[in-house]
């Protein structure tokens, strides 16, 4: 479904990604794990075309994403839930949801999808008229996911959804990701929280210093000595 | 370092390398300094047009003893420092024989200083600060009266006809406005009128109602205003809106005599009087013709500014004709001996009080009567009877 083929990415004269290649198949949950600054967010930003690769290609269902402007990505069915939620803090919950459905099919089915989002997150329904900036961390993450769902995506990319949440909420978020996946949405997840993500994913890639160093199924990686040392602290 | 040298050289070349046009033979050059760009450009343009019109007429009539009069009109942009460099250029590069023009007190003062230092005769025709001719400078001559004399005709009208007890003064806080207001304040004290309010304002306000409301509260007999056209019309319009009704509204020259004042203030301009330095109906030879010619040619009315410039050009031509040579001392001698009639009235440079080489021009009072600016004072020149007293509310149609 998504095919990233040896992309090289730089910020100005500073190269961050070297020959990164990986693949996400329909219906999968794929995790990209790695330390702070390894290039995980950069990878996602490149997929959403916020950054342009110096070389390499990104294809989604045969369509070259790297040739599209960033605002056209969502229309292809790819939605990126950025690190730190990045909600619109001075807009209400409902407005934030609307912002996810500005174009095409999503716009037509806006209120239908909204009902569905409220079903997924009843808490959001209670707080429809509240400003997003006043929500708690967990609710904000729900809203961020909800906003992504509103675009009727086929691929959702999550950038560290567990960031700054309590363990309990982290569990919630991950079960949410699973739920979304079960509804038929393919998931690409970027996480530092290696342990839990590896156990729930289909496949995973390890990103170190801008390069993919390991890949395999979740269990394979869990068993890997290097992963254990570097990320699990064991 | 090297790049700096190269850049320096280029800039020097631009600044220094270009030299002016070669002096044309058979002409005599006079520099004219006026603000033709910048915020004062409006008046600068009027004066420039008047100068050019006069120049054409003079040259058509044989020029200066067979030589053509060539006016080099230079833009001061209304800023003293530019004015200074302009005059320096005219003197040293263009080698003009004398300088004329001079609009706005500050620029005129700065340029006059250069002329004095360089022994260059300078005939000022609009810059009105007293200091221009009270600084003891010998090479500076002035055609127009100093600002302190602008209201002299109004003074006699006040003492003889209106006889007010209380006065409110509003003025633009420019040099012209501030000086004029100070002088009028003094005059009122001398004549025994009580000044109940004296306020300066920054040019370009939209809303004068707050201050006018205060004027209304003080209920003065006369309201004396020194303002340029647009402020003048807004002041009168808003006075009308507030039903502010003193015995008389008086403008201290400047904006109140301009045709735009009437156009913009509309009915509120009616019966307002103003001091002025000139009016086309004055019995000076050529005054009315000048007014008509100017209007026909430039499609706009002309006021005392244009007359001053036009007259100044004729004075310059006259001086140059009479001068023994175009040496500065000879021109100065000719200026000293000037005694001629112009559209602006008689011109003669004399020294009185602290004033040096100052023309004693008279001032007048005009009144807007039925949409026309009529000369009402002094009586001997009046074209219409001075309208007084006035029921303002009726005039304004309330």
């Amino acid at each position: 479904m998504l095919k990233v083929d040896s992309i090289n990415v730089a910020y100005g004269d500073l190269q961050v990604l070297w020959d990164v290649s990986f693949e996400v198949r329909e219906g999968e949950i794929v995790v990209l794990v790695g330390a702070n600054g390894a290039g995980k967010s950069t990878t996602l930003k490149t997929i959403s075309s916020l950054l342009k690769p110096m070389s390499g290609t990104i294809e989604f269902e045969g369509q070259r994403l790297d040739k599209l402007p960033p605002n056209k990505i969502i229309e292809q069915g790819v939605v990126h839930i950025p690190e730190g939620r990045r909600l619109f803090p001075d807009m209400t919950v409902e407005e934030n949801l609307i912002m996810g459905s500005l174009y095409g099919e999503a716009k037509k089915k806006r209120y239908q999808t909204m009902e569905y989002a409220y079903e997924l997150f009843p808490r959001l329904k209670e707080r429809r008229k509240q400003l997003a900036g006043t929500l708690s961390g967990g609710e904000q993450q729900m809203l961020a996911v909800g906003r992504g769902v509103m675009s009727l995506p086929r691929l959702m990319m999550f950038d560290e959804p567990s960031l700054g949440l309590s363990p309990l909420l982290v569990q919630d978020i991950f079960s949410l990701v699973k739920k979304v996946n079960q509804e038929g949405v393919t998931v690409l997840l970027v996480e530092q929280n290696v342990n839990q993500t590896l156990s729930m994913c289909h496949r995973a890639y390890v990103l170190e210093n801008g390069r993919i160093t390991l890949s395999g199924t979740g269990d394979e990686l869990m068993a890997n000595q290097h992963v254990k040392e570097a990320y699990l602290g064991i | 370092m090297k790049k700096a040298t190269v850049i320096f050289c280029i800039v020097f070349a631009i600044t220094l390398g270009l030299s002016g046009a070669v002096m044309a033979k058979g002409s005599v050059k006079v520099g004219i300094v006026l603000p033709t760009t910048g915020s004062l450009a409006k008046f600068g343009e009027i004066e420039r047009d008047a100068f050019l019109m006069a120049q054409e007429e003079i040259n058509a009539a044989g020029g200066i003893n067979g030589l053509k009069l060539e006016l080099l009109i230079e833009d001061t942009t209304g800023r003293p420092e530019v004015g200074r460099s302009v005059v320096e250029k005219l003197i040293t590069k263009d080698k003009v024989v004398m300088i004329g023009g001079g609009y706005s007190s500050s620029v005129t003062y700065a340029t006059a200083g250069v002329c004095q230092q360089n022994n260059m005769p300078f005939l000022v025709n609009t810059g009105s600060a007293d200091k221009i001719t009270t600084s003891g400078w010998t090479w500076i001559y002035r055609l127009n009266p100093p600002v302190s004399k602008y209201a002299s005709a109004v003074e006699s009208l006040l003492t003889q006809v209106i006889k007010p007890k209380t006065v409110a003064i509003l003025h633009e806080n420019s040099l012209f406005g501030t000086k004029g207001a100070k002088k009028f304040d003094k005059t009122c004290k001398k004549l025994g009128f009580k000044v109940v309010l004296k306020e300066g304002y920054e040019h370009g306000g939209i809303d004068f109602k707050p201050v006018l409301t205060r004027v209304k509260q003080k209920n003065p007999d006369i309201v004396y205003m020194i303002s340029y056209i647009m402020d003048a019309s807004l002041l009168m319009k808003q006075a009308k809106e507030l039903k502010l009704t003193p015995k008389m509204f008086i403008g201290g020259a400047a904006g109140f005599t301009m045709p735009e004042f009437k156009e913009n203030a509309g009915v509120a301009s009616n019966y307002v009087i103003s001091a002025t330095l000139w009016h086309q109906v004055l019995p000076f030879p050529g005054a009315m013709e000048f007014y008509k010619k100017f209007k026909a040619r430039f499609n706009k009315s002309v006021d005392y500014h244009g007359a001053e410039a036009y007259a100044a050009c004729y004075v310059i031509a006259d001086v140059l004709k009479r001068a023994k040579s175009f040496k500065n001392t000879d021109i100065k001698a000719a200026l000293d001996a000037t005694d001629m009639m112009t559209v602006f009235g008689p011109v003669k440079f004399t020294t009185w009080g602290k004033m040096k080489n100052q023309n004693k021009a008279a001032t007048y009072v005009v009144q807007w009567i039925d949409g026309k600016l009529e000369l009402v004072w002094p009586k001997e020149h009046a074209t219409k009877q001075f309208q007084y007293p006035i029921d303002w509310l009726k005039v304004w149609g309330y």
Partner: protein
Amino acid sequence: MDVFIQTIVSGILIGGIYSMIGIGMTLIMGVMGIINLAHGQLMMVAMYITFVMAHFFHVDPYLSLLVAMPALFLLGAFIQKTLLNPLIKVESILPENQVLMTVGIGMVLTEIARFIFSSDYKTVKTSYSSSAIFIGKISFNVPMCIAFGFALFFTALLFWFLLKTDLGRSIRATAQDSEAATLMGINSSRITVITFGIGSALVAAAGVLLMPIFYLFPDIGGAFTLKAFVITILGGLGSTVGAIVGGIVLGVAESLGATYIGMGYKEMVGFVIFVLVLIFLPGGLKRLTKI
């Protein structure tokens, strides 16, 4: 007492127009973080359009809103698209580059106007220019009341647009988080172009409404640019409600200053408020009202 009430009334009425100027500026500053030093000059352009319409085609100034606003929308959009947006990619030592750019734009607009219309004062005269309504002893200038009404109308319209339309929401979203907005499919550079256009159209409306009351010359813009700042900083960046309140507060403060301190200090009142707000209430009234 009459003096006081009249002062307040004058202040509120003029404040309506100030608000219009301020809203356009606050929108631009809020969405793009650009300090637009050419704001007043854009208003000047709109006033010349009104003048031309009235003088040559005898169109009532209020009708020329229909021409001036779209025209200025296009001009603003053009400026943003060709001059300001490309600047984001230009690297320089001073981050204030965009501000300096608007200074240049302002100069160019002023001088072009001077080229075409010379420095003469221009006015549009209407039958109602100086008519006033009296309530008790207090006078209400008719065109100012109309302007105030229009200001309310445009503000309401803008509110509806920002709150209820997708495009309006997109503008707000871009102001709050432009990268996130991009991820939601919003073309943020297009939004900045539209926003600059709307901001320009609003200040154009202010200019048109001012035309029957005031007069026009090429240098008129500068003073209004400064007022727009004061209002924007007073109201809080990006806050439309703040801009309205800020405009009226400025109008009233100027009037009170003119009446009780002195006409000459009227302009200073605004600047003093400006500096005080910057220092003691950074964030402006928005901090207090939270909108």
